[in-house]
């Protein structure tokens, strides 16, 4: 690749993506296994089906990578990423039935390293192009919805339902939905409780320096406890509470299950919520606070009219941290019977069934990603002050 001569026109990340993408195109795209446990045979992209079927997919991958090189036109790079993603799914949808045909009743096909690498490359290309385009919060929201709609459409169409991971799903629909609801319950519920405790605590800490000095170190300490240890610690504590406090067991408080996982997540959430509330509230320029006092605002009015609105982006950033963190950490709940996607991950680990692990891991990653993007959009929307503040 002659990058030197035309470095001005070629995007540096684009070159990297093209090199990685081309290499990934040579790697196995899918695997075909006799059943869900054994290792399968690797199959490269152009062997997935008839050349007439794979060629359009391969061409759009190559075209997507090539378009990604054009530094000057982020829109075209964006289109290249979309084209590449379409090519990926085309190959996946074309390869699955073709490989399965005549391969036996228990045969499984799943995406392999090549697919995952290309997926990562095109997503990175897309976010790089988006970074250059710098769309407003509403445009980003529209893009997010469009992407989710496209994904839903692909899954709904049934074109991928013969994939191994989708077969794992098909066998566990009710369990999957239950895990999904539990996972959301763990992540959002613990965030809500942390908010109910953390926001007032943050506001108190903001106005009282001594309280701040006492509370923040404790919360920092909680944050440093390794997650497995924290979940483990909850077991004897809540087990004891469940046995000694009358009525506790009847509302679900026991050593294992939802309650200890939930409590552990609440503990992890407190520092980001309280810390960012304190930081956000003290982000207001001191002169503006003085002016607010000088014109006769009460402490409450200062809080509501000056400190909170100016600190809201920072406070919401704390919420974003907690949400993404909790969606990830909630996986560990699966280990102590708390439910959520972690259940599949740990079952899969026990059975060495990769697809089952993926059935837990992929939705978790998706959920975290969507939550992060949605929260970023929200943070941008509440940022009422223009960038330049003197």
């Amino acid at each position: 690749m002659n990058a030197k001569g035309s470095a001005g026109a070629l995007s540096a990340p684009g070159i990297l993506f093209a090199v990685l993408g081309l290499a990934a195109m040579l790697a196995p795209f899918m695997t075909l296994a006799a059943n869900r446990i054994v290792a399968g045979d690797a199959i490269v992209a152009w062997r997935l089906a008839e050349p007439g079927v794979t060629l359009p997919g391969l061409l759009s991958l190559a075209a997507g990578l090539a378009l990604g090189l054009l530094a000057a036109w982020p829109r075209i790079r964006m289109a290249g990423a979309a084209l590449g993603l379409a090519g990926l799914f085309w190959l996946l949808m074309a390869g699955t039935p073709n490989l399965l045909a005549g391969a036996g009743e228990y045969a499984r096909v799943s995406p392999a390293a090549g697919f995952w690498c290309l997926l990562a490359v095109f997503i990175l290309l897309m976010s790089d192009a988006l970074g250059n385009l710098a769309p407003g919060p509403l445009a980003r929201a529209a893009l997010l919805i469009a992407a989710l709609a496209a994904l839903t459409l692909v899954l709904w169409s049934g074109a991928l339902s013969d994939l191994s991971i989708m077969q794992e799903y098909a066998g566990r629909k009710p369990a999957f939905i239950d895990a999904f609801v539990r996972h959301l319950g763990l992540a959002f519920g613990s965030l809500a409780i942390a908010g109910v405790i953390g926001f007032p605590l943050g506001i108190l800490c903001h106005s009282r320096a001594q309280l701040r000095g006492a509370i923040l170190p404790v919360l920092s300490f909680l944050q440093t406890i390794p997650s497995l240890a924290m979940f483990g610690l909850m077991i004897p504590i809540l087990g004891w509470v469940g046995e000694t406090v009358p009525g506790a067991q009847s509302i679900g408080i026991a050593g294992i299950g939802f309650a200890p996982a939930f409590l552990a997540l609440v503990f992890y959430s407190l520092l980001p919520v309280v810390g960012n509330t304190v930081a956000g509230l003290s982000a207001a320029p001191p002169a503006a606070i003085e002016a607010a006092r000088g014109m006769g605002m009460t402490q409450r009015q200062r809080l509501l009219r000056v400190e909170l609105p100016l600190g809201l982006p920072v406070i919401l950033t704390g919420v974003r941290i907690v949400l993404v963190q909790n969606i990830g950490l909630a996986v560990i709940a699966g280990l102590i019977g708390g439910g959520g996607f972690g259940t599949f991950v740990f079952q899969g680990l026990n059975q060495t069934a990769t697809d089952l692990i993926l059935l837990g891991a992929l939705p978790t990653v998706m959920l975290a990603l969507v939550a992060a993007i949605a929260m970023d959009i929200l943070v941008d929307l509440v940022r009422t002050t223009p960038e330049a503040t003197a």
Partner: protein
Amino acid sequence: MIEIDKITRLYNGVPAVDAVTMTIETGTVTVIVGTSGSGKTTLLRMINRLEEPSSGEVRINGESTLTIKPHILRRRIGYAIQGHGLFPHHTVARNIGAVPELLNWSADKISARVDELLTLFSMEPETFRNRYPGELSGGQQQRVGVARALASRPDLLLMDEPFGALDPVIRTRAQDDLRRIQKQLGSTIILVTHDMEEAIRLADRVAVMDSGQLVQHGTPAEIITRPATEFVADMVGRVERPLRLLSLVPVSELVEEGVAEGEALPVEASLRDALSACLWTGRAAVPVEQDGVLVGRVTFEAIRARARARAHP
């Protein structure tokens, strides 16, 4: 009337303001001057209780400020903070309307007042009303800060270096505007500056502060002709004393019959302006006009005589 009664503020045992006593008549402009760190801001902030005095008290129309809840007291007193202190997340209009909003004025009344004030400070309301402070120049921010302090037409106005960030042209205009508004409304203004020129221009009474103490409180002429201490004399600037004195007297006081060559001066101009015109063009007299009509002249000789008379009364 505002009575500041032996007010002291200690920081770690060191007085920032040391037993200051001073009486301010209603409807006058008092300018507090002093070097940096002399306690001007601290003194000003004790009047609206942003800073609580370590001892002593302030009485407004005989009523001790200690008997009023601080936030209620502050709503009655306009305050322009040193370095504007605008709310970055509110538009210019909301910033200016902040105190009227606290006082529950109607929206119509507030927006009319905002436009009035913007116009007064030579900022086109259409252009500036919906801007954010971050989209203004430093001088514009400062004018909005002053407009905010004036918004509810308070009887008492505290201003901490309100014109510090303005260029000389705008600064002079803003000073004239302030003086005009003050005369119109009869408000009492206490203004802090470290610029003696500004003090003499604006003040009915000048209060000079040095290391927390009030070293002199008097009319500009008194401060110039009879400085109480070496420090005050230095603040006034010895060589500039005659010129500062002349700047206090309008040309109208020395107008006499007769004609003179060259460009005319308006009657509101000061004797300092007239002297400057004489020196610059080498004339022995300059014509004086009122509303574009010649009303006489002022002579170099008369200015000289007047300067001596004022310096050694």
